[in-house]
């Protein structure tokens, strides 16, 4: 997985790239959670994420829940078809903020 973070006002956008599995979830959390904890609105752009397993889904849930605690939000954007399928399999499409 590679990533890029852009900042605009109070919004941080994390562009993730590649495959997200258990091997890289710690790295993904290290990138995303501090941004959420700082109170920023975080956009996760998954356009270039070609694969995500249950570990990746856990990162999305943890980020979403941390955002609720911090009175901010995580928006999951441009989800690729294959990742959307996994999100829907977990029945999270109504829970996560998808755009």
């Amino acid at each position, binding site marked *: 997985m590679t990533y890029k973070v852009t900042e605009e006002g109070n919004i941080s956008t994390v562009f993730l790239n590649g*495959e997200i*599995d*258990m*091997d890289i979830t710690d790295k993904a959390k290290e990138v995303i959670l501090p941004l959420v904890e700082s109170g920023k609105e975080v956009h996760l752009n998954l356009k270039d994420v070609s*694969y995500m*397993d*249950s*570990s990746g*889904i*856990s*990162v999305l*849930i*943890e980020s979403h*829940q941390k955002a609720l605690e911090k009175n901010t939000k995580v928006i999951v954007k441009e989800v690729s078809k*294959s990742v959307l*399928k*996994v999100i829907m*399999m*977990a*029945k*999270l499409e109504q*829970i996560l903020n998808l755009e």
Partner: protein
Amino acid sequence: MNLTETKDFPVNTSSLKEVRTFSRETFEKINLSQDLKDELVLAIAEAAQNIVKHGYKGVEETTDRMEIKISLKNGQLEIGFFDKGKAVVPENVQHRQLDDIKPGGLGTFFIKQIMDAAVFKKDQKGWVNHLILTKKI
């Protein structure tokens, strides 16, 4: 078409990508829809992840290997997983309730969603656990 492909992998998280590559390459040899191939790769990756995550919980490093065997015979797909981790008590293998939203506990749910059956066999032959996933395709 009948087919059997077997490969072993080091038991660590870095192997999961290799597991997916092996699975994808095997399913390329079978006439399946891309959606089904993706689902099967996910199920295999989740089962392999369970070995690393739960079978070797608390183990910092190991030289153990796990073996995955993908077989297709008469339209029945059978995927075997062999490992030497902690013995699995099948009754304890449960996924979390979907409305209990929290990180973790989804891997087994995905496997059950995708496959027709997931059964631990007692015919390990030198292994500790032998999980078989099956699906009619």
